[in-house]
């Protein structure tokens, strides 16, 4: 059984390779694996109901990881693992993740394809820049949502009017402030000990993260932290240092993987195989009991286009059918808050993910780059659709039919998606309540979805 120490040792003693050679090798090897396992993207079936395809995708991902391994940027070494080591690690990986403690415990089981159980939903303002003044209201809006099992925050780019740059003392101060304010938001939401699945969104460096990781500041035992791989199949010592710290802490490690569709791997099938491989990376190098996938389109920075939904679905099914890992799908929307387009994007992604075996982690919006463009209405919509999808008992064929109708409503607009409205236009920042415009828009959306087979009364009981 591979231990973390073995990983570190291999990062020091593995075969040397130039990073550019690694990037080229990823494309070449992935293409070979995709051809060997006959993996083909099918635009007519964005949610395929094909168990054999899912199983081949899993095998392809494992073979890809066994052939490639992991590249360590700091040492220029390749960390290689045998197939036996990989399978053993997956077999021994946790089949549940637990956040929080006492009455605030959130137990997250492995999910299966077409699982009738509600998905767990991590509400998150993924990487959206906000101001210091709005940080707490934004976080509170997420934490107070009834379907939020855990939450995490956006980020600030300026702290006391100084830019928060990685590696600076400001980063350490801002990182500590981040944790204090997240916990404060949970308190104002009426859930003071609510688990925070990723307590650090502002600081990148490990020293700043460690400085902030203290219960007296608000990072409670049973909170979590994400450790992100670098596309594709790369890690560095900053990441591995976080793992070394977290293994000795009471915090839950979340592996985070965002292969780029169209990037070093290639197209949808290749990127799906890479995403499977990244989960093996997360088990071995990050020691993660839960895994987050955010594959995105290299140009459109979303995962709601037809090929991205196919990729999300096939990868989810591959992992759900062949492992007992706890997996979450991160939702990345092209459009912004309070637009009709985002209703359909959120619905398509949530439905696809829920029937394909994922838990849900909504969401990045407006291509994850527009300051202040986020609100808790987006994860609310995503969570409600996911819960209803599970309770109605949609199977993949039914989900595919609905997703195709939804895609018709927005896919042509993806490259020019509207950025939507800002937090203060979507919410009253004083009462932290959504404004009528957004609530009415979602009511209208629910009526449309009801016509397609959703029954929202199932979540009102």
């Amino acid at each position, binding site marked *: 059984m591979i231990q973390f120490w073995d990983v570190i040792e291999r990062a020091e003693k593995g075969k040397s390779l130039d990073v550019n050679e690694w990037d080229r090798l990823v494309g070449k090897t992935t293409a070979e694996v995709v051809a060997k396992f006959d993996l083909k993207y099918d635009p007519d079936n964005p949610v395929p109901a094909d168990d054999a395809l899912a199983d081949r995708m899993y095998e392809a991902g494992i073979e890809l990881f066994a052939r490639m391994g992991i590249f360590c940027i700091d040492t220029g070494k390749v960390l290689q693992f045998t197939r036996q080591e990989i399978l053993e690690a997956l077999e021994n990986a946790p089949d549940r993740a637990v956040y929080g403690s006492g009455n605030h415990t959130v137990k997250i089981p492995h999910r299966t394809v077409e699982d009738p159980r509600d998905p767990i939903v991590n509400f998150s303002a993924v990487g959206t820049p906000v101001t210091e003044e709005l940080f707490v209201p934004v976080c509170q809006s997420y934490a107070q949502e009834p379907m939020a099992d855990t939450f995490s925050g956006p980020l600030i780019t300026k702290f006391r009017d100084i830019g928060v740059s990685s590696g600076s003392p400001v980063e350490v101060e801002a990182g500590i402030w981040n944790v204090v304010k997240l916990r404060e938001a949970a308190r104002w939401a009426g859930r003071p000990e609510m688990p925070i699945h990723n307590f650090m969104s502002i600081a*990148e460096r490990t020293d700043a993260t460690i400085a902030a990781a203290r219960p007296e500041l608000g990072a409670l035992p049973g909170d979590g932290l994400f450790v992100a791989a670098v596309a594709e199949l790369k890690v560095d010592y900053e990441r591995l240092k976080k793992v070394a710290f977290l293994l000795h802490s009471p915090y839950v490690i979340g592996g985070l993987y965002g292969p780029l569709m169209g990037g070093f791997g290639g197209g949808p099938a290749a990127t799906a195989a890479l995403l499977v491989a990244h989960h093996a990376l997360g088990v071995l190098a990050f020691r993660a009991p839960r895994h987050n996938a955010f594959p995105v389109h290299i140009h459109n920075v979303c995962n709601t286009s037809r090929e991205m939904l196919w990729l999300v679905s096939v990868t989810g099914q591959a992992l759900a059918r062949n492992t007992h890992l706890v997996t979450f799908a991160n939702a990345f929307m092209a459009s912004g808050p309070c637009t009709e387009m985002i209703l359909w994007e959120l619905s398509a992604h949530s439905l696809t993910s829920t029937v394909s075996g994922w838990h849900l982690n909504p969401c990045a919006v407006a291509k994850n780059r527009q300051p202040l463009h986020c609100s808790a209405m987006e994860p609310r919509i995503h969570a409600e659709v996911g819960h209803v999808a599970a309770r109605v008992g949609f199977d993949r064929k039914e989900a595919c039919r609905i997703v195709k109708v939804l895609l018709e409503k927005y896919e042509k607009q993806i490259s020019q998606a509207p950025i939507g409205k800002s937090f203060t236009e979507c919410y009253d920042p004083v009462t932290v309540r959504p404004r009528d415009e957004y609530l009415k828009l979602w009511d209208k959306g629910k009526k449309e979805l009801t016509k397609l087979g959703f029954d929202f009364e199932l979540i009102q009981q």
Partner: protein
Amino acid sequence: MNEILTELNKEVQIGDADKVKQLIQKALDQGVSAMDILEKGLRSAMEEVGKKFETLEIFLPEMMSAADTMKAGVEILQPHLESGSEGGKLGSILLGTVEGDIHDIGKNIVKIMLEGVGFEIMDLGFSVPTLSFVERVKETGPNMLAMSALMTSTMVHMPRVIQFLKDRGLRDKVKVIVGGAPVLPDWAKEIGADGYGDNAAEAIKIAKEMIK
């Protein structure tokens, strides 16, 4: 002549380096000028490759393969290019991902495209220390400095580089463009960059406009 350049264009896009080398030799033997081979056979191919990548008709591995093939072609073409023409280079660009940011896929795509259309690229790599950008500008005197960032926490280094360039009296000597996932045009303007590219195609357009 057009036929062989068309074939050359096609083989660059396919990424067959051996075939491209043969075709270049054949074209030279037929009396086609080295500049025509470069412009109409190789660079035009890379422009098409760039367009195909923008619409994801092809993916990054195919684009990288075409770029490698073009490089192989340029190598054998180099001795035939007129001396003093600098190999038909459009200008020099210093390129890197800012301090703390190890994500370089975007920077690499921009590099491939800029090289493909004829710029000389000095790639400083990723997580380039702020002062290294400044020192390299001083040492190499490029026409342009292009900085990339994938993370909001690292793009903050861009204005610091620009400030250091000002402090050392270098700002007027080099054009500065910025890009990357979290970078927006308004922010680029606010920090005093000369230009902003939302993607590789825009970066090329801006570079061509600014370096004349």
